[in-house]
């Protein structure tokens, strides 16, 4: 079974974000970049499926700048078989990204395509279902676990008040959320092996952003908060403030 996992290079969540002088992007200096956390769940899910089946191929696919090859190597070190880097910058336009990814996926003819539920940079939560729609493939979003049977997949999806079980045939697209798949650490052996695994690199065709970032700004400062008091006796005053000052009760 051939599984494609789309991964994105994003800043580590611990990183402080500074805006670049252009005002439309972040300053990458001093920022640690990682595989977007949800995408790591997706890589882990793909590796577990391949291991359970005893055969198959896991291909990592990313659209990004040349530095993204480093991110793909990290995924190869986890155990993926090969990687493809499409060089291009869709900015914030998820549909532009989806078009480039879909074009590549079509040629790979995979049985399963995995995405992270959302990218840790733009937080758009859209590229997975967009790609699936462009490819006319069935898509289940926010999957916390799935079981692959012979002809079909059963997906667990957490919804209000419970878990939904959905069934879908192959080929299919899933977006993976936190759940069953705790990402493995790359072993030293894995890191060494990754250096020799195939990584194809080429320009993405026709990536045109139509959702335009005019400006990035820092979030509005929150007015300094205050400690209402110590211990249970402060509860009455807190409730009064919530009603009379904050007007939220």
């Amino acid at each position: 079974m051939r599984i494609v996992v789309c991964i994105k290079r994003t800043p580590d969540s611990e990183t402080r974000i500074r805006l670049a002088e252009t005002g439309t992007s972040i300053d990458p200096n001093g920022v640690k970049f990682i595989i977007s956390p949800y995408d790591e769940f997706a890589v882990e899910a793909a590796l577990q499926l391949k291991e359970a089946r005893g055969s198959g191929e896991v291909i990592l696919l990313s659209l990004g700048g040349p530095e993204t090859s480093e991110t793909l190597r990290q995924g190869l070190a986890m155990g993926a078989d090969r990687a493809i880097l499409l060089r291009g910058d869709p900015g914030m336009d998820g549909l532009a990204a989806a078009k480039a990814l879909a074009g590549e996926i079509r040629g790979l003819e995979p049985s399963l395509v995995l995405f992270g539920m959302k990218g840790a940079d733009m937080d758009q939560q859209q590229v997975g279902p967009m790609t699936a729609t462009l490819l006319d493939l069935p898509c289940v979003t926010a999957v916390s676990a799935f079981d692959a049977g012979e002809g079909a997949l059963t997906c667990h999806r957490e919804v209000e008040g419970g878990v939904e079980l959905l069934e879908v045939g192959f080929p299919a697209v899933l977006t993976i959320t936190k759940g069953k798949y705790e990402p493995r650490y790359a072993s030293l052996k894995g890191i060494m092996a990754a250096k020799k695994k195939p990584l194809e690199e080429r320009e993405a065709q026709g990536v045109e952003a139509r959702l335009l970032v005019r400006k990035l700004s820092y979030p509005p400062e929150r007015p300094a908060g205050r400690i209402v008091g110590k211990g249970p006796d402060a509860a009455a005053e807190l409730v009064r403030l919530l009603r009379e000052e904050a007007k939220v009760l």
Partner: protein
Amino acid sequence: MADVLAIVEQREGKLRGISNEVVSAAARIAAGMGGACHALLLGPSGMAGEAAGLGRYGAEKIRAAEAEALSVYHPEGYSRVVAEVAREGGYAVVVFPASAQGKDLAPRVAALLDVPLASDVTGLEVEGGSLVAFRPVFSGKAFATVAFSASPALVSLRPNAFQPRESPAAGIVESFVPSGLDPASWKVRVREFRASGGGSRDVAEASVVVTGGRGMKGPENWGLLEALRDALGDDAALGASRAVVDAGWRPHGEQVGQTGKTVAPKLYFALGISGAIQHLAGMRTSQTIVAVNKDPDAPIFQVADYGIVGDLFEVLPRLAEEVRKLRAGD
């Protein structure tokens, strides 16, 4: 033409509260663009009447797509109907709720219409006749101002970020049966629903969120949080930190933070939560934040509007009691 289409939501035949937020925002945008606001509801036949009240929030026309196959959300059926209505109506803007359903639906409609989507926006303005959206990026560490160079412009609105606002309009209801719906051809099949111990209100959509962290000590103490939630009313939901979810005390559906849900309620309670950056990523855009922690130096106090330093096991019962007292007096 600069009309705006608001996609509204029902569950089990009842219009969901978030619909009022979406229509109010859409009506304001339509006014800024010199167009009309229409609402679109998908549901089973006989559903249309439920939506009549949307006129109060500014919908000139309410279109109800009625079919048994649309009773519950299905991505394939819903995305096709919405795309068709958006295309035929020639709308300039289509507004979705960024609810659980909206997050699944909007990207598919965007792909069908071949136009980009700005997800989970917290602000909308009309500048020089065009739509400009504001949205948090990098887990709320920055905000982006975005413009669209395609029509219609698609946006989904973060729950609770837009207040419902009354601005009465005609609210003429038109129901129709969408053609060409063929559920037998849909590729995703819902097999089963397993109810869990979790609450029934989605933490991402509730207007009040009561979140417990590791300071709660164990799942057996969640009764204290439930008592506070119940005191706060129907629109309150429970949340959890990752530490709590990883320990198996609560389901992942309740997790707030970078690898959980992003919430922006009117009122957020962080109870026994230290305030790690990944937790803040999911709640820092809340309107009012309250923290209770026994450690006066806990980082959560730096983002909280109001804090109590103290032991949860003493503070929580009193807090629930005070809220109950206050609301009983209303």
